């Protein structure tokens, strides 16, 4: 049975029980009202019977006309009460009928005594007759009083019995509700929480890499369906992951081959370049005086080009080094590294006036060597692109980016057009002409590669003539995200 069906069934049963209790209370209320009415009416009957007995006794004792008239009035009052329809139960109705018969007998006998008294001769027969009837009247009236009082007691007993029954029904209802609640809780534990716990364990196992973990939930309800879908999903993931592992292995191999190739090419290119530069210099030094101005200029151009190509190869080797280097995590004082780089830059060009604003105590967990390379590139850029600003300001600090802490390097230099931001981190990509700001276009690619190795995000903001800001967001929790584990490097 589906969990939703069980829930509907439990709710319906619970509601039914509550309705039963409500009906019971309504029934009890009606019963109590009827019993209270019976008691009230019975008390009135007892009062009328007492009155009738009093005046009957008075008449039999003194034969007063006033007492005879009062007996008539009391009887009429009693007759009305006994004829009134009240919600009596079967036993009480039978008692009431008996009271009616006895009342009529008593009143009839009273009438006979009265009639006999009117024409009484006062002899022995008359005395015996009156004594017999008087005794009968008094015993009838006494018996009637006992029965009427019994009616009052019965009404009280009815109220008590009704209250007891309501208590029993309510207790039974509550017991039923408690049993239902316990059963629902048990079913919830068995059919919902248990499977959910197994599902949670399965997700953790799968998250931990146990792709072969199977979820054993064979129920026919919603959670059973979910478990079957989950198992299907892990099977699909397992297959995909297997294919991914194979692809990655191939990729790692290709990458290593490519890196090796790049390194070899770069390294091997340096030697002919040095030869080109060296022989060009030798020509200038040994034969410069014999060469005309155009020839010397050409040799200078060959030297400039070969040196520039050497720098390009250095940058490429640097990029390759960043990629290959093993990541060694430690506490890294970004502030200290930034100051050290700033000092170096200031010494290299002491004529420049740059205001450095480096926040104290910026410490992250990362690879010191790689982060130093990244900072060097970022600060080199900031230094370079503020070279034409009279009041240059370079800042290193921390702030919130998209609700997360970030380290930033900003300057008030040439800036860049955000429309080309996507090209910033590509190798050999430049947004400014080399004649304005010399460079190879590899620096930011190296920065991005360092950040990717750490698993950190790198972003940039800027506007032409208004400076640029580069920020990265260190993360501490997920080492597995770092690129060193990424087989593609």
């Amino acid at each position, binding site marked *: 049975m589906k969990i939703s069906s069980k829930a509907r069934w439990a709710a319906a049963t619970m509601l039914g029980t509550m309705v039963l209790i409500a009906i019971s209370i309504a029934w009890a209320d009606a019963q109590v009202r009827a019993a209270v009415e019976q008691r009230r009416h019975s008390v009135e009957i007892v009062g009328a019977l007492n009155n009738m007995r009093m005046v009957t006794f008075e008449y039999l004792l003194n034969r007063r006309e006033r007492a005879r008239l009062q007996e008539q009035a009391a009887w009429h009052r009693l007759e009305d009460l006994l004829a009134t329809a009240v919600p009596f139960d079967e036993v009480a109705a039978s008692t009431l009928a008996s009271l009616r018969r006895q009342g009529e*007998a008593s009143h009839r*006998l009273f009438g006979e005594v009265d009639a*006999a008294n009117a024409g009484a001769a006062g002899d*022995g*027969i*008359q005395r*015996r*007759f009156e004594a*017999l*009837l008087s*005794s*009968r009247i*008094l*015993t*009838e009236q*006494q*018996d009637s009083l*006992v029965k009427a009082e*019994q009616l009052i*007691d019965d009404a009280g007993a009815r109220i008590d019995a009704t209250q007891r029954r309501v208590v029993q029904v309510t207790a039974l209802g509550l017991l039923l509700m408690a049993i239902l609640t316990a059963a629902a809780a048990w079913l919830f534990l068995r059919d919902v929480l248990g499977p959910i716990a197994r599902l949670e364990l399965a997700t953790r196992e799968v998250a931990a890499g146990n792709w072969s973990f199977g979820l054993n939930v064979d129920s026919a309800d919603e959670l059973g369906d979910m478990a079957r879908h989950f198992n299907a999903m892990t099977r699909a993931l397992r297959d995909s992951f297997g294919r991914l592992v194979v692809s990655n292995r191939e990729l790692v191999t290709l990458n290593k081959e490519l890196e090796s190739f790049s390194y070899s090419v770069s390294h091997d290119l340096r030697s002919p370049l040095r030869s080109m530069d060296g022989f060009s210099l030798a020509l200038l030094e040994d034969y410069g005086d014999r060469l005309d101005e155009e020839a010397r200029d050409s040799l200078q151009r060959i030297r400039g080009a070969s040196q520039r190509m050497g720098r390009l190869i250095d940058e490429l080797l640097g990029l390759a080094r960043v990629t290959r280097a093993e990541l060694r995590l430690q506490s890294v004082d970004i502030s200290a590294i930034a100051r050290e780089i700033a000092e170096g830059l200031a010494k290299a060009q002491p004529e420049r006036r740059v205001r450095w604003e480096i926040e104290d105590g910026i410490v992250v967990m990362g690879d010191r060597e790689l982060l130093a390379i990244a900072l060097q590139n970022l600060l080199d850029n900031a230094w370079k692109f503020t070279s034409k600003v009279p009041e240059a300001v370079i800042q290193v600090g921390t702030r919130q980016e998209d609700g997360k802490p970030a380290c930033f390097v900003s300057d008030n230099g040439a800036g860049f057009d955000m429309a080309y931001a996507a090209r910033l981190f590509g190798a050999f990509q430049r947004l400014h002409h080399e004649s304005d700001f010399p460079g190879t276009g590899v620096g930011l690619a190296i920065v991005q590669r360092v950040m990717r190795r750490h698993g950190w995000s790198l972003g940039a903001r800027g506007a032409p003539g208004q400076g640029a800001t580069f920020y990265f967001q260190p993360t501490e929790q997920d080492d597995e995200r770092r690129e060193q584990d990424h087989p593609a490097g």
Partner: protein
Amino acid sequence: MHLSAGGAAQPLKLRLALPTVPHAGLLHLAAALGYFHDQGIDASLMREIHGKAALAELLQGRADLAVVADVPVVIELLKGVPLNIVASVANAPTELAVLGRTDRGIHGPRDLIGKRIGVSLGTSGEYFLWAFLVRNRMAPDAPQFVDLPPAKLIGALRDGDVDAIAAWQPVRHQAELDFGNAIVSLPAPDAYAQRFVLVGRREYVQAHAQDLSRLIRALLDAEVYVRAAPARAKSMLAGLFKLNPEILDPSWRDMTLEVEQQQAQLVTLEDVAAWAMARGYAPRQPMPNFLSYLDLDPLLAVNPERVTVVR
């Protein structure tokens, strides 16, 4: 002799003398249905043809308790026999009637003046006839009483030896069937409400108050049974009495089987006593205090609402 509170002792042995009339039905049924046994009472029943015979068993010491109409009990009490009434077990206010032959000019109570009325002297039949005459403002000696045993009442009426008879059920019913419109039935419910009482010797009753409460409890159980299944109770009684159930119908219709001690009973006992002394069935004496002959405690202990005696 009797059970302890824990019920581990020997059951109470009780000898009950009961007339085989439905008025003693509660005791017959309690024995047959095992209610006495349930209360720890080992009851042995002595079935007698009528109440006076049952009372005789009690008086002769062969029974511990007997069921009998109130008239014989009053006569014995007036003679000084120490008896106590434990409870009334049946009342039949409309059972007795005077049956008069219409061909002898009897159509109403006052037509009985100067007539011969057959009656079993010294029984509740005679007391009824006396009360009947008083109720109808006639002198007790206005008609002539002819002493007849119950079995000969109908024959005497048929033969014309008497003009009328005073009879109980089932004799009354039989006469009404036999004679049809040839007789007139003259009941007098206001004159005498006949009761059958459970009676025992005073010393026995006083010594067994707790045991008698258990007996009362068994009788109340039988009463519940009768109220719940009256037809089955009547059939069971007919079986015990070896009678056709229809024979019990008139008595069954005119009586109520209830365990009680009522104030009205004291009035009846006094009226019967006055009659008994007037008729010479007992020595003349000041009216005894019949309250002292009622043993109320057993019934009070079990169901006090059934005791309406002013106390």
